[in-house]
């Protein structure tokens, strides 16, 4: 017996035998579903909405078998949240002069090519106004979650061009899809701009990667470029503007953030952090700009966290205490399904502040530990929610209504690795410019989830020095904003070259103090002990 299965929003249809996994049906239909754990049911990244006979359920595609005709839609994603008001700089509309903007529906496409996510913005060529935006997961994830794994695949996987083909296909498909939402076609695209990290940039252009993945991690080519888009295989016949790179681990996406925030015009000490898998950051003292990249890992994107998920519907995005009770908000409402980066940071901050997690990051053994099953009592002290998992590991029960959600000891350790890497990067940059955290006037948080992160929680877990607290400002997806600005104003694109060349890259692995800062930053801050450190 076969069942009919429809994948939304594209209405892609296929028929599969009774009992087929949703993930296998998706593969058959050519629909891509993220599954970094390889179908073990542990990472929860393949969560989808499954609708059968009028009933909709949230399920894991890799664990759910199809037993009737049904439709599958992706969880509503928040990656496209608009920038907060006032974050973007304004530039006059003066795009690349050698392009043709005469068509009635002429538009410009700006891509932010991220390791995990690709976003495409469409701007009206005559007004510069944004007319559409589309996003998708980067399908290269199938070849590895991080840039090193992908570079390694390209070098040793036997198909060096597979990743290039994969990304070009994805860019085309996203462009067509986004054009479709505003009734435009590829012929209307007059200009494309693209920003991405160095590995994404090199994979897109098919550049050699050997020297990029071994010390001294030097890019093949760093300069900005103007290329015919069709030459790369893109479906629009126009110019493609590629922003410049700084070095091996700081790419055009960071430069785009710097352009979008007019970082080179800052006269006071300013810090910019793009919190993501690669955790790039830049610091200026008003005259000199330095930058670095930290291996923060994917914890903030929900990966490697047992109950982690991306910031999509069903994710707990904020956690707080109200009259001694644990409270949280769920994206899209309803029962929680997992914890996204901001929820993870809030929860760990809260547990550390209440000493349920001790300074070293251990669940405090002095707290009452309930039996194996864990006890869920709204009014009990939070320490009572610590229980022992079957494998002997301690865990904190977040919610027991609907699906059981717990934060394990290992989850806390993953958070510690990520936050320590970013904090150590900040400390090394401050040291390089002989600045103290107190002197920094403004801290700009970029990144798709930068808007949701609580500055207080970031300081409470020690990801940011507490002295930065009052100057923290979330600026949203500044890399995407930069890509749009490059489309609108060619002079800004031209100036990005100088910005890239005037920003000094600091290799953290070569910094003698990095390890000390890194280990220091593993701990959760305790104010009374601060002075002794």
């Amino acid at each position, binding site marked *: 017996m076969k069942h009919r299965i429809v994948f939304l929003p594209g209405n892609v249809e296929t028929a599969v035998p009774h009992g087929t996994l949703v993930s296998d049906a998706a593969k058959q239909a050519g629909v891509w579903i993220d599954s970094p754990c390889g179908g073990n049911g542990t990472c929860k990244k393949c969560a989808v909405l499954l609708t059968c006979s009028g009933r909709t359920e949230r399920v894991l595609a890799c664990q759910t078998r199809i037993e009737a005709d049904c439709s599958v839609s992706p969880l509503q994603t928040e990656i496209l949240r608009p920038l907060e008001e006032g974050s973007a700089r304004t530039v006059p509309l003066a795009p690349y002069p050698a392009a043709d903007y005469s068509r009635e529906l002429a538009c410009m496409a700006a891509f932010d090519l991220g390791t995990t996510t690709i976003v495409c913005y469409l701007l009206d060529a005559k007004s510069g106004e944004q007319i559409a935006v589309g996003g998708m997961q980067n399908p290269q994830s199938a070849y590895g979650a991080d840039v*090193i*794994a992908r*570079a*390694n695949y390209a*070098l040793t996987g036997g198909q060096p061009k597979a990743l290039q083909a994969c990304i070009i296909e994805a860019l085309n498909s996203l462009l067509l899809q986004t054009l479709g939402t505003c009734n435009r076609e590829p012929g209307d695209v007059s200009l494309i701009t693209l920003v991405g990290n160095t590995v994404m940039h090199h994979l897109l252009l098919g550049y050699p990667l050997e020297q990029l*993945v*071994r*010390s*001294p991690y030097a890019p093949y080519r760093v300069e900005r470029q103007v290329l015919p888009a069709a030459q790369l295989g893109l479906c629009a016949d126009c110019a493609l503007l590629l922003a410049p790179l700084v070095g091996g681990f700081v790419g055009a996406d960071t430069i785009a953030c710097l352009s979008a925030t007019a970082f080179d015009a800052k006269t006071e000490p300013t810090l910019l952090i793009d919190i993501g898998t690669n955790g790039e950051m830049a610091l200026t003292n008003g005259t000199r700009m330095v930058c670095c990249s930290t291996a923060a890992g994917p914890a903030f994107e929900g990966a490697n966290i047992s109950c982690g998920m991306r910031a999509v519907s069903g994710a707990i995005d904020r956690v707080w205490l109200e009259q001694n009770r644990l409270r949280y908000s769920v994206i899209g409402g309803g029962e929680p399904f997992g914890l996204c980066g901001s929820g993870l940071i809030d929860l760990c901050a809260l547990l550390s502040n209440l000493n349920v997690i001790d300074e*070293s*990051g*251990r669940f405090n053994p002095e707290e009452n530990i309930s039996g194996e099953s864990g006890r869920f009592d709204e009014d009990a002290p939070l320490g009572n929610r610590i229980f022992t998992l079957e*494998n*002997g*590991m301690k865990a904190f029960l977040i919610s027991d209504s609907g699906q059981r959600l717990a934060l394990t*000891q*290992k989850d806390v*350790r*993953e958070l*510690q*690795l990520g936050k*320590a890497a970013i904090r150590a990067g900040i400390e090394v940059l401050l040291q390089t410019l002989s600045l103290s955290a107190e002197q920094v006037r403004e801290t700009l948080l970029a990144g798709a989830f930068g808007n949701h992160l609580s500055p207080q929680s970031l300081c409470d877990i020690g990801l940011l020095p507490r002295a930065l607290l009052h100057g923290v400002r979330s600026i949203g997806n500044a890399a995407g904003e930069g890509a749009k600005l490059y489309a609108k104003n060619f002079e800004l694109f031209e100036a990005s070259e100088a910005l890239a060349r005037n920003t000094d890259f600091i*290799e953290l*692995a*070569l910094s003698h103090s990095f*390890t000390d800062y*890194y*280990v220091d930053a*593993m*701990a959760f801050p305790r104010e009374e*002990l601060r002075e*002794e*450190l």
Partner: protein
Amino acid sequence: MASIQDISAAIETGKVKIIQELVLESVKDGFDPMEILNSGMIRAMENIGERFSRGEAFVPEMLISARTMKKGVETLKPYLAGSGANTLGQVVIGTVSGDIHDIGKNLVAMMLESAGFEVIDLGIDVSAERFIQSISENESVRIVALSTLLTTTMPAMRRIVEELNQLETRGRFRVMVGGAPITEEFARSIGADGYTADAASAASMAKSFAV
């Protein structure tokens, strides 16, 4: 009065702020410095290593404990002089060429030093030539230890081990490898003598090779 158990507990829980005081107190109370080192500190790191192997402890604890241990060893060092430390021979250690990450390598170096080896740390981005040169310059090298963090530099590790295996002097030292992407299987396939998953077990293995 501080006991050896207190020192052990302080290292296991990463109490870097009190370790110095505990060590000085226990020396004043008449404990043998070698006993403090072996039963207090190294034992504690071994415990963490075992917990790490069982999946109960994680990298942050290893690092926090190692730093506590480092501070403890520094405090204890003046009292260890002449009591027979560093008798197990020399270890040449380094991060392989193409890789500049050394947090794990430094952790292993520290454990080996505490275990009684004289550690010759060649640092990062170390070529086969530099390993070989160091082996020829140092008569009592018993262990050569190679580290890498990146999957992309695993081939470099393979090449270095191949070159080491062709040395005439290969019989007098053992080759140990480690690092995040390394597995027992990979270690065997490239012709290394040993692999361990963590710094504490690396020290125990090195000791077993040296005696």
